[in-house]
């Protein structure tokens, strides 16, 4: 592998890693703070992609579609949290897994009812459709670079939100000791609803911004969900920093796996996870108290 193709693969891994991070950070936050395993998280990613494709038919603009789409996904997340998840806080993980599994069946079927089983594609916006020449015959699409930059900004925004704002402070406090936060007079139910809806929004946004590079198809949510689980487990459940490192590691393992061992690329991801867990069963940044 020469340097340019190495660079291309590296950029691809980073871009994939960032998308994964957006999905996985919601998953890890929801678990870390609410203690809920949400299998339906991937469905938000899928709905994001479908909604942006659907809205694109009216608005003809990716930006506008995303601007309208994200609130829709957040509302969907809020509704699901209030109607179903809220009843599960005191229950065993087993029931959370099962309820959200049922939720996947329902949401996947709804997707088929609304939009059918065809593959769709969303065009890359005109301004970003060019490519950056790397050598005489190798180029790199601008839109992929754009995805990385946007995701980086969002990651930075999340960092600021969680580290520097009052809401972030409450969220962090809720993650480390739920009862204490409640005793201090914070309405923890409200925090839960906000976090869940935020996580849904992030996953939906990842699906939207990623729609032009991956096509829009049934089952896309299941695929990203499982990979996000791996990311979360590697990083340590509840840790945003861990989700970031884990997403980048998986991005690298997946992209380079596809180039180096094309037949077993998907296994490379899980092998990475097994090795890391052998070394640290609680994940890279997880608390060993589990």
């Amino acid at each position, binding site marked *: 592998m020469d340097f340019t193709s190495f660079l291309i693969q590296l950029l691809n891994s980073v871009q994939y890693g960032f998308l994964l991070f957006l999905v996985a950070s919601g998953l890890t936050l929801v678990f870390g703070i609410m203690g809920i395993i949400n299998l339906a998280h991937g469905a938000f990613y899928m709905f994001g992609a479908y909604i942006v494709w659907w809205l694109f038919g009216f608005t003809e603009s990716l930006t506008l579609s995303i601007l309208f789409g994200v609130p829709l996904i957040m509302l969907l997340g809020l509704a699901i949290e209030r109607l*179903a998840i809220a009843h599960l806080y005191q*229950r065993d993980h*087993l*029931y959370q*897994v*099962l309820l959200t599994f049922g*939720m996947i069946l329902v949401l996947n*079927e709804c997707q088929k009812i609304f939009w059918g089983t065809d593959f769709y594609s969303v065009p890359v916006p005109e301004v970003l459709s060019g490519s950056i020449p790397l050598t005489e015959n190798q180029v790199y699409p601008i839109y992929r670079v754009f995805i990385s930059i946007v995701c980086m900004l969002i990651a930075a925004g999340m960092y600021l939100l969680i580290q520097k704002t009052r809401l972030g402070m409450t969220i962090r406090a809720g993650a480390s000791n739920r009862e204490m936060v409640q005793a201090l007079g914070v309405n923890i139910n409200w925090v839960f609803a906000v976090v869940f809806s935020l996580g849904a929004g992030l996953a939906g946004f990842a699906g939207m911004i990623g729609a032009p590079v991956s096509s829009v198809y049934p089952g896309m949510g299941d695929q990203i969900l499982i990979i996000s689980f791996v990311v979360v487990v590697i990083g340590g459940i509840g840790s945003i920093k861990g989700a970031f490192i884990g997403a980048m590691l998986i991005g690298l393992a997946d992209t380079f796996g596809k180039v180096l061992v094309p037949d077993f690329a998907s296994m490379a991801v*899980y092998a990475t996870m097994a090795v890391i867990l052998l070394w640290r*069963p609680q994940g890279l940044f997880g608390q060993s108290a589990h």
Partner: protein
Amino acid sequence: MFRTSLTTNLILICLLVVLAALPPFLGIYYGNMVTRLMILGIFAMSLDLLIGFTGLVSFGHAAFFGLSGYILGIVMMDTETASIYWVLPACLGVTALASLVIGWFSVRTSGIYFIMITLAFAQMLFYFFNENTALGGSDGMFIFAKPTLAIGSWNPIDFEDHHTFYYVVLVSLILSYLGLRRLLNAPFGQVIQGIRTNEDRTRALGFATRRYKLVSFIIAGTLAGFAGFLEAMHTSIISPAHLGWHESGNVMMTVILGGIGTLHGPVLGAFAFGFLHDWLQDVTEHPTLYMGIFVIAVVLFLPRGIAGLPADIARWLRRKPPGDGGSPP
């Protein structure tokens, strides 16, 4: 001790008699369906050994179910006939080995990590078979010939015959049930149930809990492999979908629907689930949608499953309706 009440035993024996008497009345379609549901019952019981009795929530149990079927497929790929005396041990042996490896990693963790790790390992196997073009890739493979029981020219049981196979599966189901029951009443079973109730105390009593959990994982995995073997024999086809996480989710749903922590519950769950799905397919275009709603409803309203239903109803009947006198103030 793992005991069931006299009433439960009587009901179970009645159901068994019904199952044994049914085949002549079932026809091909329902005969196959009941056979499949009994196989799923064995599969669900094996998962309940983990979830209900050891307290290990495995979300990758289908891996062993499918793996065993694939081994059967691989063994039968280039051969016309093979003897079950070595094919079955081969399938179970590979499955046991796989559950040893996966279990060794998994039991080091607990709670949500355990759920996710078992899921990830199952996915790893899923992709291994999904991307392996020699084994049919995502389409899976046909199993053209079944292994036989024949010794020389003497063949006591012909697996090709639907009725015979029905009874083979029924006997397997009964033996699995009795075997698990025996296991749960043995000292080993007492220890794993102790682990479920309170792992720290069990460890404090001097039991190497991690080793017990691993053995329980291997037994459950191997029994799931046995169910997978029967399933592959029954349908003559094996595909990556058998190992997928939807299958793992479905069997988990079966266990919960039937009632965790009982042995007959998962079998009842398999039947309820199977017939419900069959009925939904007839009456609606979107069976999965209603299946999903049903699962959500079971989790929210029926946490103890079908096996817990009589107790739930009894408690509901005993509760005095409001305004019915009650104790004076």
